[in-house]
């Protein structure tokens, strides 16, 4: 119990004292920017984790819900002058609402059929962002001049924005953590493992899937609003299929089924391209290689539920000499 408390306090200190202090020491907007974007993607990955990591549903259109949030926040801000305080929840709710609508016909689907349905939904939403010019302004995107107004405070400074974004991210991640590390999480996991069997246990599979999907969309919507407010300009390409795949990669690289894994995955895939900037034009090859290495050597992810530790112990325990006979379970 006390160890848990310690972790909690540690996290808070890290996010709200250590990181800003370090950033302050460098006094670099660049680092704030990266930290802020990273926070947005941590939230995004954490929200996808609920659906893909815990409930085991391969979701290939998550970026679209992120996009809905961003569009709602940006359009409310630029067209109706409804600021951040209301725009943020509105963004989350709008994404959740759309998720609810599209979930009605699709939640019956299983495995890869579900995946392809979400791909279609994601692509359709993207096409709407891009082509419904009269509302979304189409390819012109939406410019959002207003800064973050947080309950009357106007937040302009980098550190201020960092604090707001991180605070919302942290709060959301705590909620997602509690959702997944609870009996509710177990119910979701049971869907991942065997949905028919879960149904026999009295679990309403369709409704549960729908809940997970909608909740996840809600947080993706929040992430979208945060993104809109940190950049001030959004356009459809920020929410295309590649972005969905990027978020999926975060969840998987970090370790499917574990929230810290998703967080680490998001940090890795946001920070890595930046860190590798000096490598030059080959940097994305390295991103691919690192991703590959991460999956190869930690096949259940950095923090996988079906734990990496067990895996490590196994390797160490049986002395991974590379010869077939030393591998207890081989496919050779």
């Amino acid at each position, binding site marked *: 119990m006390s160890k848990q408390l310690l972790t909690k306090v540690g996290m808070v200190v890290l996010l709200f004292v250590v990181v800003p202090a370090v950033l302050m020491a460098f006094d670099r907007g660049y680092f704030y920017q990266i930290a802020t974007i990273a926070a947005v993607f941590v939230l995004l990955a954490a929200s996808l984790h609920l659906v893909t990591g815990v409930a085991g549903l391969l979701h290939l259109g998550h970026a679209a819900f992120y996009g809905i949030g961003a569009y709602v926040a940006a359009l409310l801000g630029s067209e109706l002058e409804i600021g951040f305080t209301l725009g943020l929840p509105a963004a989350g709710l709008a994404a959740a609402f759309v998720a609810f609508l599209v979930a009605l016909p699709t939640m019956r689907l299983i495995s890869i059929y579900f995946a392809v349905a979400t791909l279609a939904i994601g692509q359709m939403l993207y096409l709407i962002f891009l082509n419904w010019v009269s509302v979304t302004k189409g390819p012109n995107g939406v410019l959002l001049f207003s800064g973050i107004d947080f309950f009357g405070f106007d937040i302009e400074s980098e550190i201020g924005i960092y604090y707001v974004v991180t605070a919302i991210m942290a709060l959301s991640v705590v909620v997602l953590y509690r*959702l997944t590390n609870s*009996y509710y999480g177990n119910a979701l996991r049971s869907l991942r493992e065997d949905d028919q*069997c879960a149904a*026999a*246990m*009295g679990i309403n599979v369709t409704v549960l899937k729908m809940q997970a999907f909608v*909740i996840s969309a809600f947080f993706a919507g929040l992430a979208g609003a945060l993104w809109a407010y940190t950049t001030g300009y959004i356009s459809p390409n920020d929410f295309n299929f590649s972005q969905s795949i990027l978020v999926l990669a975060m969840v998987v690289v970090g370790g499917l089924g574990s929230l810290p894994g998703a967080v680490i995955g998001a940090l890795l895939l946001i920070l890595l391209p930046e860190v590798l900037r000096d490598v030059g034009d080959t940097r994305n090859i390295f991103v691919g290689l690192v991703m590959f290495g991460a999956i190869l050597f930690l096949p259940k992810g950095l923090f996988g539920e079906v734990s990496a530790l067990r895996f490590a112990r196994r390797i160490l325990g049986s002395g991974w000499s590379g010869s077939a006979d030393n591998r207890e379970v081989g496919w050779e």
Partner: protein
Amino acid sequence: MTALLELDGLTRHFGGLTAVDEVTTHVGQGELVGLIGPNGAGKTTLFNLISGFTRPSSGAVRFKGEEITGLPPHQVAHRGMSRTFQNLRVFPNMTVFDNISVGALGALGVGAFQSVIGGRKRSHEISERSWEMLERVGLNEQANDLAANLSYGKRKYLEIARALAMEPDLLILDEPAAGMNHSETAELSQFITELNSEGLTIMLVEHDMSLVMGICERVVVLASGRKIADDTPVEVRQNQAVLDAYLGGDDE
């Protein structure tokens, strides 16, 4: 004795095959009923019809006086019926404890909201119930092992414990003793009788005659989808049709 479960002319076709053919029977409150029959007689299909996994082609299922024909499995479960599967279905990548908690959850409600704010009482209740079941089937030492790493027999108990965690009124067991040896079967028989004596109504399919004949109060026999006998074990054992179709010669 009031009937807890009533089946009325239940029929199911698969293509040209009639897997379950006009089966009418009932299970009374507190009864322990066995369902036997040759392989492919339609026993599992009958269980699937009762628990909502398969829709009947015709006929009706009534549970606690209420018609439940065609309801989806989770709703049937909510009304107080829980089952195990013939081909073992545990959640392999979850711990033994978590497996059982899903059963408790199904009964107590899933509760997204409570898991975030408050809900202490509920989660306490779930863990209490899960531990209780764990202890009952003697898996408490393996509570934190992955279910996939349990041996076959232990998984059987896990499945039963999970079903019990729902605190059902009717428990349906599909071949609970398969894969167990005599002494283990005896242990299981004891366990099932104990459950039954606590007031739980149980219906089970089993090929192990020592179990069925030993503990069931009544035995229903299916052959080729039809009910060919419905009687006490003693009577059924002597029924010529049953002997021909199922037991064949002397039984051990």
